[in-house]
Every structure is written in structure tokens, then in C-alpha cells.
């Protein structure tokens, strides 16, 4: 016990003495939480539109003003030449071209089909999808109004017979489809993982590179004491960061905390050990900080991008979805969201917690085994 205390004392002394380390440990996570939470959004904000209005009618003007009224669309360019509008799109100045053919109003009034061309810059497929669904719903509403008007003004059998199924969407837990609510718990996971994975692993490789590890190896320190001495400081720091993050999430971002905070903290504790063990494992198979860093970063990117943080796991092909079973980050992101946003409790998350625990124990055992007090 005393040896562990001495080891911890030394680690903390070293961590807090390193001037560039303190901001990295405590300021960076906060800044990242703030920046990333706001950045990670697919919400449509301002779509620049080029309008080609060949009809110049009351209805065609109504179309554009409906678009503008939503606040999402901004009329950037008005022209009669398709080529000019296309040029603007090529240069990325507009992302939607709205082309209204002549005779548009007349056709609508007569109850005939009136085409309207929407050209969308689809380089970014998800934004394009959003532009499309916003535009079509604007046009659908407008169309419904027009049809009612025609029905009232003149009886048109054509219009009456058309069947329609009304789709009424309802979004639970997050009715406004607010991205921040969704992203913050996930980003917290990423920040904690980075502290756990990079710093604890790096720390051992550093002692190897400097040579102090040899000195430790000829002392009677036991492996587990050494491991605890290396794991615990960053575990504590990771937990403190998580707490700061949770406080910010609750009071800064107004994220609802439906589930139990204790559950989150317990899972976080297990998760941190798991990810730190992975860091240790990396440090036992590498010789320089550069190597360790590179492998850790590589794994981290894969964990994050395939962990459902940004793009849904449900979008991945089956084999890739299966890979998430061995991705601790994916588990923890899912648990955080379920517990905080949906109020899930132990029954719902238990199998994932078992998963993380199993991974953590395996990694810890392997890395303790791999770490040798003897060289070569």
C-alpha cells in the first residue's frame, strides 16, 4: 500500500509540475466540449438559392417568399439564364437552384400538373437530403392550400379523387431534433477516452525512452503496484474531467439528466480502466512515444468514427455494425445517451456494461502479463 502511495505521489508531482500539461488536462477538454458540441450538427442554417423565375406570376413569387419565410433559404441570385445559375453552383455560391417554368401558375389553377425544377448541390449528400426534404415539404403545404382553394372556387373532380396518406411525425425525447442534446454526451465520452488512452499509455513509453523504467525494474516494486501507480492518476483526472463536463452539460447546455448520475459515473469508471488498459497494452508493444502515439491515435479515430458518435451505427453495413461489439467507445457513447437522454437504467444497459467490463479485464490482464520487469 505504501509503495502505491509513493508511486502516486510521484506521478502527480510530475503531472502538475509540467506547465504545458495542466491546460491540456483541464482547459482543453472544456474548450473542445464547447467547440465540438456546436460544430457537430447537420441542422440546416442558411441555404443560398438561385432563382430562375420564368413565370413571373403571383404564384411563382409566392413560392420564393414561402422559401424565404422559413428562415432557412436566402435568395442569393436571380437570373433568367440557367447557365449563370449553374456557374454559381459550380463555384459553391449557391446550393439550390429553383427553376419555375413559364405557365406554372396557369397549370396549377387549372388543376393540371405543374413541374418545378429543384437542382441541389449534392456534394454533401446529407445536406442535400435535408434541402430536398425541406423544399418538398414547403411545396407540399403550398400545393395543399392551392388545391383547397381550387376546390372551393370550382368543382374539379380530378382534384377530389386523389388519395393521400398523411404522415404525421413525432419525435420523442428530443422533439426539436436538437443536435446539441445528442452530441454533448457523446463528446464527453471522446474527451475522457483521449485522456485515458493517450496519457497513461504515453507515460510508460516515456519512462522507457528516458530510461528511468530500468531503475524501477531493479527495485522490488510489484507489477500490479506499478500498474496501479500508472493507471490511477489519469483515472482520477479523467473522472474529474468527466465531472466538469457533466456539470457543463447540465447547467451550460441544459441537457436533461433523465437517468441516474451514479450509474453514469460507475460505468465511466469501468470504461476508463478499459481504455487505459488499452493504452498500457500499446505502451508495452512500442518503443518510442512516436510509435505509441501513432497507434493510439489510429485506434482512437476508428473508435470514434465507427462508434456512432457522428454517423449512425445503423447506417453501417452489417459487418461494420458487428465490429462495434468490440468497440468500448461505442458502448459507452450508447450508454451515456440512453441513461442521460432516455432515462435508461440498469436493466437496459447491463449487457453493455458486462461487455465493457469483460473487455477491460481482458485488456488489463494481457497488458499486465505483457509488461515485463525483465527486458527482451
Amino acid at each position, binding site marked *: 500500500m505504501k509503495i502505491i502511495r509513493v508511486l502516486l505521489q510521484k506521478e502527480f508531482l510530475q503531472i502538475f509540475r509540467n506547465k*504545458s500539461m495542466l491546460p491540456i488536462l483541464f482547459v*482543453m477538454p472544456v474548450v*473542445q466540449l464547447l467547440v*465540438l458540441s*456546436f*460544430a457537430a450538427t447537420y441542422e440546416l*442554417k*442558411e441555404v443560398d438559392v438561385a432563382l430562375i423565375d420564368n413565370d413571373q406570376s403571383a404564384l411563382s413569387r409566392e413560392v420564393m417568399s414561402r422559401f424565404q419565410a422559413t428562415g432557412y433559404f436566402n435568395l442569393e441570385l436571380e437570373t433568367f439564364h440557367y447557365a449563370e445559375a449553374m456557374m454559381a453552383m*459550380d463555384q*459553391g455560391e449557391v*446550393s439550390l437552384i429553383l427553376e419555375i417554368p413559364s405557365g406554372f401558375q396557369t397549370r*396549377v389553377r387549372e388543376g393540371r400538373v405543374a413541374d*418545378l425544377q*429543384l437542382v441541389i448541390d*449534392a*456534394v*454533401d449528400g*446529407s*445536406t*442535400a437530403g*435535408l434541402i430536398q426534404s425541406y*423544399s*418538398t415539404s414547403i411545396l407540399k403545404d403550398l*400545393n395543399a392550400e392551392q*388545391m383547397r382553394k381550387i376546390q372551393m372556387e370550382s368543382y*374539379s373532380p*380530378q382534384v377530389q379523387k*386523389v388519395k*393521400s*396518406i*398523411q*404522415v404525421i*411525425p*413525432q*419525435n420523442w425525447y*428530443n422533439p426539436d*431534433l436538437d*443536435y446539441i442534446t*445528442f452530441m454533448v454526451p457523446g463528446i464527453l465520452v471522446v474527451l475522457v477516452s483521449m485522456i485515458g488512452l*493517450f496519457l497513461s499509455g504515453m507515460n510508460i513509453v*516515456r519512462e522507457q525512452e528516458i530510461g528511468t523504467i530500468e531503475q524501477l525494474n531493479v527495485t522490488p516494486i510489484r507489477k500490479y503496484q506499478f500498474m496501479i501507480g500508472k493507471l490511477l492518476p489519469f483515472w482520477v483526472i479523467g473522472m474529474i474531467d468527466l465531472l466538469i463536463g457533466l456539470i457543463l452539460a447540465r447547467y451550460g447546455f441544459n441537457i436533461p439528466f433523465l437517468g441516474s448520475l451514479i450509474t453514469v459515473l460507475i460505468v465511466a469508471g469501468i470504461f476508463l480502466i478499459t481504455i487505459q488498459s488499452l493504452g498500457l497494452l500499446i505502451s508495452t508493444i512500442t518503443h518510442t*512515444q*512516436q*510509435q505509441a*502515439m*501513432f497507434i493510439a*491515435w489510429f485506434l482512437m479515430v476508428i473508435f470514434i*468514427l*465507427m462508434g456512432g458518435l*457522428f*454517423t*449512425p451505427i*445503423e*447506417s453501417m453495413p452489417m459487418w*461494420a*455494425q458487428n*465490429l462495434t461489439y468490440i468497440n468500448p467507445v461505442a458502448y459507452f457513447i450508447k450508454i451515456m445517451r*440512453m441513461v442521460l437522454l*432516455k*432515462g435508461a437504467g440498469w436493466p437496459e444497459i447491463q449487457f453493455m456494461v458486462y461487455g465493457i467490463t469483460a473487455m477491460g479485464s481482458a485488456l488489463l490482464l494481457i497488458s499486465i502479463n505483457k509488461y515485463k520487469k525483465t527486458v527482451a
Partner: protein
Amino acid sequence: MNSFAGFVIKEFKQIYRDKRTLTVLFGMPVIMMILFGFAIRNEISNAEIGILDRSKDEVTHQIIQKLEATDAFQVRAYLQDVNEIEALFREGDIKEVVVFEANFRQKLVREQRADIQIITDATNPNLANLVQSYTANIIQDYVKALNSEDQIEQAGIMPKVRMMYNPELRSVNLFVPGLIAVILMLVSTLMTSISITREKEMGNMEILLVSPLKPYHIIIGKVLPYLVLSVVNVITILILAIFVFQVPFEGSYLLFFAEAGLFTLTALALGVFISSVASDQQTAMMISLAGLLLPTVLLSGFIFPVQSMPEVLQWISHIIPAKWFLIIVRGIMLKGSELLMVWKETLILIGMTVFFIALSLKKFKVRLQ
């Protein structure tokens, strides 16, 4: 010049002797490309949904069949009551419940109008949006088919949508340029900054500085091997993108490689700059990581569109080199842009490169005196 050649050869040898790192350096882009090419998508596949059918007639059956027939959905649960939804959503696997109202077919025939409720688990707004619009599209298609069976033509405004540059809305087309940027940042910026700080930490830098080598010789020598690596990586990614993922390449290869070369230089210059600021490897790596890689992934438009961000972040995104590189590469690959269309972005990148090189040269000189 001779000592310079010797120095460059030493740098190459050091890097290429470390087989493990080398494997990672070459293998990584391939693995990343394959994983992300297949896995990072905003399309839906096999999303699990539930059905609450209060009508159970032939129309609702047909619609359920249509939903099941797509790759997008898997019907996993049939519910009896709305109250069951809460528990289902909490378990977390089912993302959407489609609710048919009672007497669905009757209403559709008599009143020409029936309602379907789509209840989504919107903890993930993006996913909720996606499943919702997929479902709505399937239903709309069904209605259209129904109407045309009855030989009734749709009336009124009919939007015709054309998706430019990426008609199938494939995410891979969007992500490939971003991936190039991230990998270049990783290889060029992170690796150079660490390798130079390592020399500093180990005390070798002093030896180099007292040698007849000029500071810029040292920098060039350090940077050259990574430049070669970067070029190989870019070519690998491009080959994979075009032949495995069928990403279109509309523009000129020459321009593409010129721009990729330019961006590599920017990334290397940044790496050198970081190493001139950081005193040890740990600091260099944390700066590269927090200051560059995360912003490159998140603020450049790689995954999330820049236009969706708050004003402040849009401003910040201007100083991120990857943002400009993404505009350029997406332009060249998908839109067939020529230099005339991307000269502004190119100039910005050149400016950034010159700025970082000048700054780090100055830093090196100061240390010499």
C-alpha cells in the same frame, strides 16, 4: 551540400528502418479508407423498426410489406399499444414505430385520406430525420402507385429534384476528400512535429545545429521523408477511391496532385511550426491532436457542413487549412473544377504555408543566437 545529402539519407534510413511504424503508415490509409468508405455513411441499412397496426387491413399490410422489402428497415416488433413504445425505445435498438390509425383502408377509400404516425427515437436527431424521411418516401411512393392504378393523375405543384454532382447522394463521395486531408495531417503534421521534437528532447538537435548544416537544411531533411510518404498515401487513397468505391473523378489529375502537394506542404509547415513551439514530444503531440486533428475532422466540413455551424465557428473554420483543401478537392473530383474556379482557395493555402514556414524559420534562428 554533401553533408546535407548525408543528413537526408540518415533521416530516410531512420524512418524506413522502423518497420512497425512504416507498416502502420502505409497500412493505415488503406484500412481507414475501407472502414470509412463502407462504414461512415448517412444512409440507412437494417434499421430496426416497430409496427403498431390498429387497422390490420390489406392496405396497411401492403405498406408494411413495402417497408420490410427495403434494405433500410427490419421490422422487429409488432406492438399492440402505444404504451409499449416507451419501453422499446429505452432498450435502444428500435429507432422508429410506425402507427396506422384504425379503419385505415376505409378512411382512405371513403375520405381519400388516412393518417400514419411515425414516432421516432430522436435522441439521435440525424438518424430520426433519416428514418423518418425514408419511411415517408416509401409511403408516398405507395400512394402514387395507388393513384396511378386508379388512373388518377396527380395535380398541382410537382417538384422535380435533380441532385447535382452526386446524384445517388453517396456519402463516400463526400468523405474521400476529407479522409485525404485527415491522413495527410496525421502523416505530415503529427509525425514531423513529433520527430523534430524528439531530436530536441534527446539532445540531438544541438549537435545538428552546431554542424555545418543550415537550419533550413535540417528542416528540409526532416520533412522530405514524410513528403514522400504522403505522396504515396495520397496515391493509395485515390486508387482505392476510384476503383473500389467508384468515386467519380471529373477534374484534372494534374491539378489534383498539384493541390494535394500544396496541402502536404501546408501540413508539413504546420508540423515544423509546432515543433518549434513545443519543448517535448508530449506537448507536440497534444498540440497536434487537439489543435489540428480534431478541428480537421470537425470544423473543416469533413463530416458536418460548415454552413450549419454557429457564426463564430464558421469564422474559426476559415483558419483551418483542411477546410480550403476540402473545397478544392471536392470541386476537382466531383464538379470537375478547374484552377480558375478554385484559385482563391489555392491562394489561401499558399499564404498559410508561407506564413508557417517563415514563422518557424524565424523561431529556429532565434534559438541559434
